[in-house]
């Protein structure tokens, strides 16, 4: 459909798009196709589970969300695990951002040693699997420096994600035109003042979308700390299953909880982005 809107005279209608495009482009057909595909997947898993003689017990799931006991309302294991996951993620993210900013500034410093240290760190971290990094922190560095499994988890997640975050920060800083540096210099600002008042506030706009992706990534990868039995959502899921043997129901529920959290986050940030765009 190349319509430049120039050659066409008044009153002439555009040629109709071919039938298949109109058919698949309509909202009703799209929704129907979507529903059919989702339905087929759900039906497939149901039939598959049926085939292996799985005994669905969805009615037992709500007690792990909340309970009304004699002493009153209480949250179940899943919400408690979720809060632990969020706490773990927030702490790790803050630490990762701090390390990431340090690495990014080192890399941008123009000092040979700074760049060397930053690049060395990035290459090292990016080329170690997250699970191996976790084992390193828990089984090797933990005993050496005497920190517990919770600290080891936070450090692992922070260090692993700081590598990507430093690249996001660096790209955001580089996206600010050099004229901004020159203008700040020409009114006598120090490099620190320039970063603080001129460059970083402008970089936020460029960093927000990839940073959201990174937070979502971090929340998801925080599940890996369940292998060293740190209390969080996935660990609680494993514990429930070992008590109840309801692996299908619980893993579906846990997956849904992660999905809801990360979706809320993405929607919230896209709202923020729009707000920033208007302010500019």
């Amino acid at each position: 459909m190349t319509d430049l809107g120039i050659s066409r005279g008044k009153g002439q209608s555009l040629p109709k798009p071919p039938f298949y495009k109109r058919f698949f482009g309509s909202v009703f057909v799209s929704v129907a196709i979507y529903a059919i595909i989702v339905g087929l997947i759900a039906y497939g898993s149901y039939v598959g589970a049926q085939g292996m003689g799985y005994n669905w017990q969805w009615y037992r799931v709500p007690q792990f969300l909340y309970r009304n006991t004699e002493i009153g309302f209480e949250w179940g294991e899943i919400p408690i695990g979720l809060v632990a996951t969020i706490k773990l993620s927030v702490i790790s993210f803050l630490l990762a951002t701090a390390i990431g900013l340090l690495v990014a500034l080192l890399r941008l410093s123009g000092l040979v040693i700074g760049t060397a240290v930053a690049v060395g760190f990035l290459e090292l971290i990016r080329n170690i699997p997250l699970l191996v990094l976790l084992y390193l922190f828990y089984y090797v560095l933990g005993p050496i420096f005497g920190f517990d499994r919770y600290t080891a988890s936070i450090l692992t997640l922070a260090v692993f994600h700081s590598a990507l975050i430093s690249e996001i920060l660096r790209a955001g800083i580089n996206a600010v035109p050099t004229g901004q540096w020159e203008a700040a210099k020409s009114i006598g600002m120090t490099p620190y003042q320039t970063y603080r008042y001129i460059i970083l506030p402008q970089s936020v706009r460029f960093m927000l979308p990839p940073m959201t992706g990174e937070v979502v990534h971090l929340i998801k990868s925080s599940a890996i700390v369940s292998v060293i039995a740190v209390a969080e959502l996935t660990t609680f899921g494993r514990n429930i299953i070992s008590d109840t043997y309801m692996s299908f129901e619980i893993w579906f529920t846990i997956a849904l909880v992660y999905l809801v959290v990360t979706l809320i986050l993405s929607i919230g940030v896209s709202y923020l982005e729009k707000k920033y765009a208007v302010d500019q």
Partner: protein
Amino acid sequence: MTQPSPMIEVTNLDKYYGTFHALKNIDLTVHQGEKVVICGPSGSGKSTLIRCFNGLEWHNSGRLVIDGIEVYKDAKEIRELRQEVGMVFQQFNLFPHLTVLENLMIGPMKVRKITKTQAEETARNYLDRVHIPEQADKYPAQLSGGQQQRVAIARSLCMETRIMLFDEPTSALDPEMINEVLDVMVELADTGMTMVVVTHEMGFARKVADTMVFMEAGQIVEISPPEQFFTNPSSERCRLFLNQILEH
């Protein structure tokens, strides 16, 4: 020149970009209150020269003394110098995340450490001087190019600068906005500010310049007062250049 105290003294200055000889053996003196207009074909080193004057570029050899401060790479005094030497850029380079008023206040507040009230008073005063007091609370993107450039001039003036450098201040503007910027610059010249202006606006040059400088290929080819410069330049190359830009 009745007041012969030199504000800018350039002696034997050379600058290289790698092997490219960008500025060759530059000698130039600008006195207090003097208006110097530098012109020449693109790539002749005009911008590079004035960017050396506030340490955005560094020369490789020779001497550069500005208001009694010797300028060289990593000089400790360079930030103090930059507070005295204002720079107006071709692309304005306003801070897009700050309002016009904040653009004017951030330098005085963070660098000169003056109070917010005082900074705002100075800012509003200079906004008046560039004739856009009503735009104080807008963001740069909401202003026209001419208005943005006038804000940029005010931003430099807010630092109470003693020398103003202009790097092709009207080259990025639509034709109908050029005059509003030039008018502000003429008014500024009338206050006795020392100014070094890189521009091709010869009407402005005739009106304001005390000294005309013509550069080509990194060298100063001609330095003369405007009467002589426009009517009887001593170098053939300068005559050709003037013919080209004055023709239409």
